């Protein structure tokens, strides 16, 4: 079993083009995919699972097992209850673990007697996760899986992922706008903007590489290391690349380590400096 590798990928929809020369999702780790709406996260994930067919490029899943996919709508037949779902999935998937499925539904608080159409938003996402985790998969591809979940449910979900990762052959690709979740769970980060990968690496390394400098509105700070600038109503934020060197060179400017949210905002909304 090897890494999940995307190579030479190109997928075009009208004006938008997703172009990725090479991207690796390391087996044994969680890779977070972040970016604005329209950056190409969902397109990438659909290409990864085979739902969308790219014009060019290849996807090497590194495993003979199928993917476990969670997308934003709940695709299960609306009139079904847990027992019928079990029946369908045991027919669909090799190695379907029904006990595990029922157990997960129970621990998620999903009533077996409820029809899918009666599930709350959070239950719909959790049900999808339960399905993905109840049969052998080569990769979990999760597109905004925690959208609409309350904090407790999100933490429960993250614990599920941590549990899944106890097996070193597990591989997870997760996209989310909830940057705190990504910070908590992703070992590696991929930043997409306008269909291209602009940052790709270890989460902790990226978050310590970049810093943010808050300054007055009319300031005009330049220097090596300043890569982005964003002017707001109350001040100006600068994104610094190479925080350590910058702080050493400019001890009078107080640059703080960046949070994932700040990094995202400065990259997508900030101008190049």
């Amino acid at each position, binding site marked *: 079993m090897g890494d999940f590798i995307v190579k030479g990928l190109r997928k075009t929809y009208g004006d938008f083009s997703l172009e990725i020369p090479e991207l690796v999702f390391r087996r044994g780790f969680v890779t977070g995919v972040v970016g604005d709406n329209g950056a190409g996260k969902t397109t990438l994930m*659909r290409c990864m*699972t*085979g*739902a*969308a*067919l790219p014009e060019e490029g290849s996807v090497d899943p590194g495993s003979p*097992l*199928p*993917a*476990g*996919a969670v*997308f934003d*709508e*709940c*695709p*299960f*037949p*609306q*009139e*079904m209850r847990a027992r*019928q779902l079990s*029946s*369908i999935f045991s*027919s*669909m*998937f090799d190695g379907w673990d029904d006990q595990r499925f029922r157990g997960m539904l129970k621990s998620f608080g999903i009533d077996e007697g409820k029809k899918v159409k009666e599930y709350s938003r959070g239950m719909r996402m959790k049900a999808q996760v339960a399905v993905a985790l109840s049969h052998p998969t080569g990769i979990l*591809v999760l597109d905004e899986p925690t959208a609409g979940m309350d904090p407790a449910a999100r933490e429960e979900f993250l614990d599920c992922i941590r549990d899944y990762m106890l097996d070193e052959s597990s591989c997870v690709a997760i996209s989310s706008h909830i940057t705190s979740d990504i910070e908590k769970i992703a070992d590696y980060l991929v930043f997409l903007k306008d269909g291209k990968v602009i940052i790709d690496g270890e989460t902790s390394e990226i978050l310590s590489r970049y810093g943010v400098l808050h300054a007055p509105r009319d300031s005009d700070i330049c220097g090596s290391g300043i890569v982005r600038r964003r002017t707001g109503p109350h001040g100006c934020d600068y994104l610094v690349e190479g925080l350590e060197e910058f702080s050493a060179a400019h001890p009078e400017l107080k640059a703080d380590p960046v949070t994932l949210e700040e990094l995202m905002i400065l990259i997508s909304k900030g101008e190049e400096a």
Partner: protein
Amino acid sequence: MNRLLKKEIASNTIMFVALPLSILIYSVIMQSGPYLPFMFAAFMGAALPASSVDMDDKSGWSRFAVSSGIPRKTMVDAKFMLTLVTMSVCQAVAFLGAMLIVLITGCEFSIDDALLTIVLSVCLGLMLSSAALYIGYRFKGVAIFVVILILGFIVTVMLFGMQRILGIFSDSIAATAAVCVAFLAVTALLYILTLRTVRTRDF
């Protein structure tokens, strides 16, 4: 066994009740003779595959199935199997409907004519269902197709009347055979086209 067949049957059970019911009710109301139910069943039966492809697309089920490693051909085959099951159920119900009409109106019932009608209906139904599947996967807005189907049926029957249509075919076995073979050939072609569409489209 096809991996998706269970899902197809299970998620369409309501239709398996609604369709037969509508066939029975229509047959009794129209009272256009005991052979009409079979024709009607052919058209109505095609509505099920049409709506199921549409629903799968809208709910994201197709995307889920493909993403989960189900081969695209398996998806298409499951729909065609659903079509066969639907056709069988509808024609069986049509037979019941025909018997009901004979009971109610005491009209004539010729086994030969019934067989002819069934054979024609099944072939026609298979072709219409395949067309529904192909259109459903290739284009959006299958609902339009269903409306056209139903309208087409009403128009055909009104223009020709069942007895006259039957008359044309019962006179010539060759004509019947030719038409049925044509229907089945188009069905086969539509299967291939549907496969090609599903294999090359995004979900």
